[in-house]
């Protein structure tokens, strides 16, 4: 009976973990799948369109706003020092809500509670610019997301969603990004799905975009109903995929095809 239980447990574990989870040594950033032209675009600050948002973000960082009449810089000072490594820890646990929040939500929570300003809409130029400016300060810093033990249950939920088959195509994230990352889909590299460069400039979008936008696009691609921006499920999925990329250097603002 005991051995039967052990076998059942082992089978269950294998079923959840999947036999093809990518070993840490074989992890590759989406950058390594790109052509030399697109790599060159990301590598040089004056060729990387993401830097246009970073410049805007730098201006917004210093601009006073809201009823409190405070700028980000009034509390946080020089972002080059105060924001270094911060983006590499997000999504992080938020004490007030008892849940993980991503960098965009953190900026908006600071806006409403500290600056007493209205929150910026998801994917608005201002929110992307501020996020890009903050994330840029962590360029090259290894991702640490998920180190906080309070995040463990949320990472587990995100992982469940990552493995869950859904939509008309009945696919989970893992079916492509763990099992078939060395193959191509309609001519494009599938990649391992490590979110090392967000917010990033996608040539297809002709714009900078967030990780939530990317996840929503992928969910729509498997013909499932995408979660709304800011939905807890989306943040948990962000949290899991970021923790899955732990140790890989942050590239924000990256360029992707």
């Amino acid at each position, binding site marked *: 009976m005991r051995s039967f239980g052990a076998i059942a447990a082992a089978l269950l574990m294998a079923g959840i973990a999947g036999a093809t989870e990518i070993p840490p040594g074989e992890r590759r950033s989406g950058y390594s799948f790109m052509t030399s032209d697109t790599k060159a675009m990301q590598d*040089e*600050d*004056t*060729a990387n*369109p993401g830097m*246009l948002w970073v*410049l*805007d973000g730098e201006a917004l960082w210093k601009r006073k706003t809201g009823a409190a009449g405070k700028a980000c810089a009034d509390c946080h000072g020089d972002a080059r020092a105060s924001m270094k490594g911060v983006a590499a820890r997000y999504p992080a646990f938020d004490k007030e809500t008892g849940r993980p929040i991503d960098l965009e939500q953190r900026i908006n929570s600071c806006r409403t509670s500290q600056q007493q300003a209205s929150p910026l809409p998801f994917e608005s130029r201002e929110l992307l610019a501020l996020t890009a400016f903050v994330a840029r300060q962590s360029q090259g810093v290894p991702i640490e997301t998920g180190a906080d033990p309070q995040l463990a249950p949320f990472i587990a939920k995100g992982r469940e969603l990552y493995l869950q088959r859904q939509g008309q195509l009945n696919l989970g994230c893992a079916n492509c990004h763990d099992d078939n990352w060395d193959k191509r889909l309609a001519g494009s590299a599938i990649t391992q799905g490590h979110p090392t460069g967000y917010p990033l400039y996608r040539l297809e979008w002709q714009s900078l975009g967030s990780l939530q936008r990317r996840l929503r696009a992928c969910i729509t691609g498997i013909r499932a109903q995408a979660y709304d921006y800011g939905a807890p499920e989306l943040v948990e999925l962000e949290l899991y995929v970021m923790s899955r990329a732990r140790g890989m250097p942050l590239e924000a603002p990256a360029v992707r095809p």
Partner: protein
Amino acid sequence: MASALINVPPKAKRGDIIEIKTLMSHIMETGYRHTAAGEVVPRDIITSFTCRFNGNEIFRADLFPAIAANPFITFFTTVTESGKFEFEWIGDSGFSETASASISVE
């Protein structure tokens, strides 16, 4: 919040061929797209890019709807003296932006 990113080497030797790289923030709306309600989204593109060196035009390009957002324009030139490059982008709906960069030639 339009802004430009310019890459001009700060120094060069007389007669050197240098590469100039420019990136301008712009949506480059083609004028061929429609809204969900069926209305045409009006064209909004950059139509002209000009570079002058010490007041003389050295490079000009006309831009058209098939050009991607945030146009990245690079070109080569030979430098003969120290001076200032002035860049100008002109487009639809009165769009006009300028930037400049200096080079010292030894």
